[in-house]
């Protein structure tokens, strides 16, 4: 079994129009910039994939990454908790003009919905958002005298994540707090693609150090010395 993919072009080749795509990372940490940019390259060259639904904590910052996807016109809908980052013009202009749909989800509910999808839990109850606008239309149930909101799992067709080490079975580790949404997105997507800073042979990761077991990962592509989103934003890069 070897899940290694030769290059970024091939890694992003399977994503069809209309796909739900989870993109890991929180801020620049753990953001799979090279995978995102390879997908933009494909869209620019072929017009596909378009009408994507993107799941991320944010809705893009600056003029790279998810913002660049939005600018390119590939994105139909964003599911996120916090689209109002410091520089969110790409999102703002298309959202306010009605070209881009937004599903706003509290951050903990977002992560729990993603995990639930990976764990085969179609719905769960949470205290979060009870009594607020974000609970409108949702089933409410009391447990032990306290009201809770029912939330559904959130599945994806594909996930892009950024990992540190990856082996041919798809086992992954992450650098520091670059873990964030990446492990749960691997669980929730039919096909999870990881860009790894270093591909190691089988046995190159101690079994107790694996953070994402390979069963959740369909492919890994090595991207040595990956770009850091935060650096690109600070440098004012435009993709």
């Amino acid at each position: 079994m070897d899940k290694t993919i030769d290059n970024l072009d091939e890694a992003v080749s399977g994503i069809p129009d209309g796909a739900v795509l989870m993109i890991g990372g929180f801020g620049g940490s753990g953001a799979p910039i090279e995978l995102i940019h390879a997908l933009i390259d494909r869209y620019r060259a072929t017009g596909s994939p378009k009408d994507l639904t993107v799941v991320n904590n944010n809705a893009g910052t600056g003029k790279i990454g998810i913002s660049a996807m939005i600018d390119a016109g590939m994105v139909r809908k964003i599911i996120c908790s916090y689209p109002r980052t410091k520089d969110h013009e790409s999102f703002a202009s298309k959202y306010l003009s009605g070209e881009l749909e937004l599903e706003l989800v509290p951050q903990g509910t977002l992560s729990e919905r993603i995990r639930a999808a990976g764990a085969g839990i179609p719905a769960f109850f949470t205290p979060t958002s009870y009594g607020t606008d974000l609970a409108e239309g949702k089933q409410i149930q009391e447990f032990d005298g306290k009201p809770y909101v029912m939330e559904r799992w959130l599945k994806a067709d594909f996930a892009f994540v950024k990992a540190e080490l990856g082996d041919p079975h798809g086992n992954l580790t992450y650098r520091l707090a670059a873990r964030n949404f990446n492990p749960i997105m691997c669980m929730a997507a039919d096909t999870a693609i990881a860009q790894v800073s270093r591909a190691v042979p089988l046995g190159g990761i101690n079994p107790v150090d694996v953070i994402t077991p390979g069963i959740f990962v369909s492919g890994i592509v090595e991207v040595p010395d990956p770009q850091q989103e935060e650096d690109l934003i600070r440098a004012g890069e435009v993709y």
Partner: protein
Amino acid sequence: MNWQKLTNAQIAWRAAQDIEDGAYVNLGIGFPEMVAKYPPEGRDVIYHSENGILGFGEAPPEGEEDWDLINAGKKAVTLNPGASIFHHTDSFAMVRGGHLDVAILGAYQVAQNGDLANWRIGTSGIPAVGGAMDLVHGAGRVAVVTDHTTKDGKPKLVERCSFPLTGVGCVTRVYTSLAVVDIEDGHFVLREKIPDISMDNLQSLTGAPLHLDGAVLDLITPELT
């Protein structure tokens, strides 16, 4: 009887032939564990254990067991390269979340609609369920390995389970000591049978009609005991 039923090893061998290269597989405790002994040449199979291991390998030599490294049957195992370890809830997330390709379980009874009974016989004594009720959900396919009949000759493939259910409509293929039977649209469909048994005899040992859908192949296995 002018036929010889398959041994458990032969049933396990037959089940192993259907496991695709690269499959993630959970084998039920006991008889189903034998399936791991017969992986077809060149196929890479990764075994999952409920207690939080992917990629475990053979038992260590006696005396070299590490009892912190056991499988769901509480037997000492080793780790293959590429193994990973995780906690129980992550382990069942793999099961329930549909990440396993195959689960192969034992059975007291399998019904023609795919219902499985494999956790208790009747309602007395001490019940124990373990992971069986979870394993019947989520795996890409759930197969059963079993003798075709009980020790006293009663059918284990039945119209409707009389023992308490493990899961509803979950089994898609049964490997027995006499046949390979698929479950499709609420029917048993006979795919393979041992050459020496007649259709009539096989049907008489089966508790619900065996349907045909194309050729019935000969079920031939190596000599294995």
